[in-house]
């Protein structure tokens, strides 16, 4: 049989989940309405008029609005109209987590959470809950949690949790009145993000045919035609610590040309604890970016201090290298705070 036909037959059966597509279509419909019915001047005017009415024409009302709601209004004027105060808090390790408000509209609940440090500066504009939160609810739902904003005056960071119910079978069911438990066990803060950082790599810094060793990769990106399951793969022997990366927490550990390809190896310490990550690419004068493949491997000699290595390999001749500059993107976390913050509240 023809390979192409069999392949097509196989993939014709692959389709995205209907619930996911429905969510995207809902978002697209909102976008579509904006495009079709509201030119930007209209939106701007409406927001301006609403702001004016809210804050200036009704000063008595504005005077009684708590600062927290004024701040939420700056994040989302539309959502602020439906805010339902909750004011339930949980404190641990000197950190207060508060469920500020929750609102339900049809099958979607929007919950604003704030976090503040009562003793220090562990909360800042980079505070991130990454994978460390959980939402318990008695109905199936798609959930998202995003950082909504940082109030520098109050030193509070706000998160918006959105729950969209998945129930397709019971159209009458409402999530109003259901109880939700939101909990957090750790968070990261003091994060430095280095975007599109040029790195000074000179051709004479790059040795040819450097020493290699076999490793069992923990991950691969790109094509590895010569890799056998039980043989591992060759990587440069980490042997240096060239100080050309601008981010503390990521170290350049080896460089070299092998088989006509440029290898650049970096290491990150304890990535499971700090979520530090980054990557490199080459870019020419026209802005064309080149990346080829990467090998990820671990050094767990010291189990309390595991090191992750990433070797980026670029398919580029040494003669062509002068046409390119090396760039990097790095995210380095300052600290992780652990604790137990948990709030249960009704959706009203």
């Amino acid at each position, binding site marked *: *049989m*023809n*390979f*192409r036909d*069999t*392949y*097509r*037959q*196989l*993939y014709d*059966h*692959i*389709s*995205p*989940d209907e619930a*996911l*597509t429905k*969510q*995207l*279509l809902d*978002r*697209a*419909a909102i*976008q*579509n309405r904006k*495009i079709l019915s509201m030119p930007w001047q209209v939106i701007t005017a409406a927001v301006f008029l609403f702001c004016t009415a809210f804050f200036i024409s009704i000063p008595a009302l504005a005077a009684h609005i708590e600062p927290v709601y004024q701040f939420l209004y700056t994040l989302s004027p539309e959502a602020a109209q439906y805010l339902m105060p909750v004011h339930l808090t949980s404190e641990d390790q000197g950190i207060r987590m508060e469920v500020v408000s929750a609102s339900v509209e049809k099958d979607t609940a929007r919950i604003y959470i704030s976090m503040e440090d009562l003793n220090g500066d562990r909360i800042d504009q980079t505070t991130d809950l*990454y*994978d460390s939160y959980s939402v318990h609810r008695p109905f199936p739902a798609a959930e998202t949690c995003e950082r909504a904003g940082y109030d520098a005056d109050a030193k509070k960071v706000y998160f918006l949790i959105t729950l969209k119910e998945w129930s397709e079978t019971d159209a009458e069911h409402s999530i109003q009145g259901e109880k939700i438990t939101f909990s957090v066990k750790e968070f990261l803060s003091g994060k430095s993000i280095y975007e599109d950082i040029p790195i000074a790599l000179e051709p004479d810094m790059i040795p040819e045919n450097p020493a290699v060793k076999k490793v069992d990769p*923990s*991950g*691969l*990106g*790109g*094509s*590895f*035609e010569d*890799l056998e399951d039980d043989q591992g793969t060759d990587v440069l022997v980490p042997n240096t610590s060239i100080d050309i990366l601008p981010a503390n927490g990521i170290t350049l550990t080896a460089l070299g040309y092998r088989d006509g390809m440029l290898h650049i190896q970096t290491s*990150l310490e304890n*990535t*499971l604890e700090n*979520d*530090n*990550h980054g*990557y490199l690419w080459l870019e020419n004068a026209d802005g*064309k*970016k*080149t*990346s*080829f*493949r*990467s090998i*990820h491997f671990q050094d767990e000699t010291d189990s309390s201090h595991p090191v*992750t290595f990433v070797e980026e390999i670029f*398919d580029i001749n040494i003669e062509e290298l002068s046409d390119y500059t090396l760039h990097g993107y790095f995210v380095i976390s300052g600290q992780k705070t652990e604790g137990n913050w948990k709030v249960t509240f009704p959706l009203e």
Partner: protein
Amino acid sequence: MKDNPEETVRNYSEMVYRLAYARTGNRQDADEIYQEVFLRYLRKMPAFQNPSHKKAWFLKVTANCANSLWRSPWKRYTEPLPEELASEVSENIDLSHALQKLSPCYREVIHLFYYEELSTKEIGQILCRKISTVRTQLTRARAMLKEILKEEFDEF
């Protein structure tokens, strides 16, 4: 070229999802990439010159999102087990099994060539790889599939 977001989601969702699945080999990651691609589209609402440009944009963003997902350290530690595509046809079961043995980048090239019917030049542009690299990857992927499938197919 004016764009209707709902129509675009409907028309391009299967193409995006199938490439994401071909690259990752599992539904969990494909779901994540699928959502991210369309959220980027809805946030950015790019102006497309023509349908080919639009198709290339979605394929390129899908490939980029798959790369970004791979770069996340959390993902590297929690890689789900690959799945085999459900099928009642034995040839398909064998092919599904064989595809899972290829590296993600080979599966990506195979998918764009055999399913999306793109040329090696177009694949190179979408994946930012040299045409010669794409050709080599296709040749090697075919050879590996032949080896795994024991010459099951008369024609590649």
